[in-house]
């Protein structure tokens, strides 16, 4: 077998004239109908009608914003994990953000201690099923007029049982605080597990109590 034969055979193949005409006809037709879209024409077509385009974008934005507001109002906004970076850009830890709707807080004054009950609404979900002990991170105590009477950083750690923990904040040193209605505002709770890095759970929780 000679490769020369193959070339001869292949070169014998010719496109039928009617096919040529058909292809050219289709090309002309598509050009006449403006089907040969190139990017310039396409982009022109969009901005030729600026008002409907702007209206459509506005409607989309409104729908998105309404959706987010409704989600936040109905408590459907879920928490999420976020990496913590150092100055060199390396990941040094993780926090759990936006957990307001996933944790319930109650506060009650018991003798010289303020007992804060922290209940996880879904104790079997991550990260709540992975922590054994809990403490309160950053918190303030406000009086009835909204004045800050106590600002603290961290409480002791207490064990979690059945998805809730009772945390005691000693008020012994604050005996000068008069009786009345107060409010505790918590911005962080810290969950820990043996042999693991503490997890900062962020949100905003408020609970009222009476002294």
């Amino acid at each position, binding site marked *: 077998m000679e*490769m020369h*034969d*193959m070339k001869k055979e*292949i070169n014998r193949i010719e496109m039928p004239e009617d096919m*040529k005409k058909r*292809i050219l006809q289709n090309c002309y037709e598509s*050009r006449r109908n403006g089907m040969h879209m*190139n990017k310039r024409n396409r982009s022109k077509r969009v901005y030729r009608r600026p008002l409907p385009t702007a209206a459509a974008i506005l409607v989309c934005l409104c729908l998105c914003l309404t959706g987010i507001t409704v989600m936040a109002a109905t408590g459907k906004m879920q928490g999420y994990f976020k990496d913590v970076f150092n100055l060199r850009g390396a990941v040094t830890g993780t926090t759990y953000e936006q957990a307001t709707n996933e944790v319930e807080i109650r506060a009650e004054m018991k003798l010289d201690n303020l007992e804060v009950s922290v209940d996880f609404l879904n104790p079997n979900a991550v990260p709540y099923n992975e922590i054994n002990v809990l403490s309160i991170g950053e918190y303030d105590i406000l009086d009835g007029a909204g004045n800050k009477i106590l600002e603290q950083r961290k409480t002791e750690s207490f064990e979690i049982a059945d998805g809730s923990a009772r945390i005691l904040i000693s008020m012994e040193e604050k005996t000068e605080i008069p009786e009345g209605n107060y409010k505790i505002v918590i911005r962080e709770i810290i969950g820990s597990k043996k042999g693991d890095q503490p997890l900062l759970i962020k949100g905003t929780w408020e609970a009222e109590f009476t002294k």
Partner: protein
Amino acid sequence: MRKNTSVRPADDIERIMELYGNMLFRLSLITLGNKDDAEDAVQETMMKCLQKNPVFESKEHEKAWLIRVCSNKCKDILRYRNRHQMADIEETEGIEKFYATESDSSVMEALMKVPEKFRIVLFLYYAEEYKIHEIAGMIGKSKSAVKMRLQKGRKLLEEIYRKEYM
């Protein structure tokens, strides 16, 4: 490659069809094995040329661009065919009609039994007389891959020919 923003004139498409229509048809027919799909591949190549309206540096550049687009279109058609198994309603005209002449057509029959990826390399090397590095550029493979395909394609073609036509 630059892109011309003006519309390609109608007579330019006719010129391209006159110059390269047969070659593109051969390439498509050898790759796809039937006339209808080959027509689709050539038409889509021409449409692409019309849409993109590229500026070519030379005739060779123009031909290489068309071959590359056409072989990509053929690959698209083959991919579509593999994913959408279809039963033929009527018999389509195969490649046999185009080479069934008075001469011995066994070489072409043997070539059509070689897998598609070798067929296209054999076509470009032996029928269009392109160099290995040019074929590599056209089908988007390395030179060594083209050499291997050429070698293996030749071997397969010879085996098929010896087994079935000698």
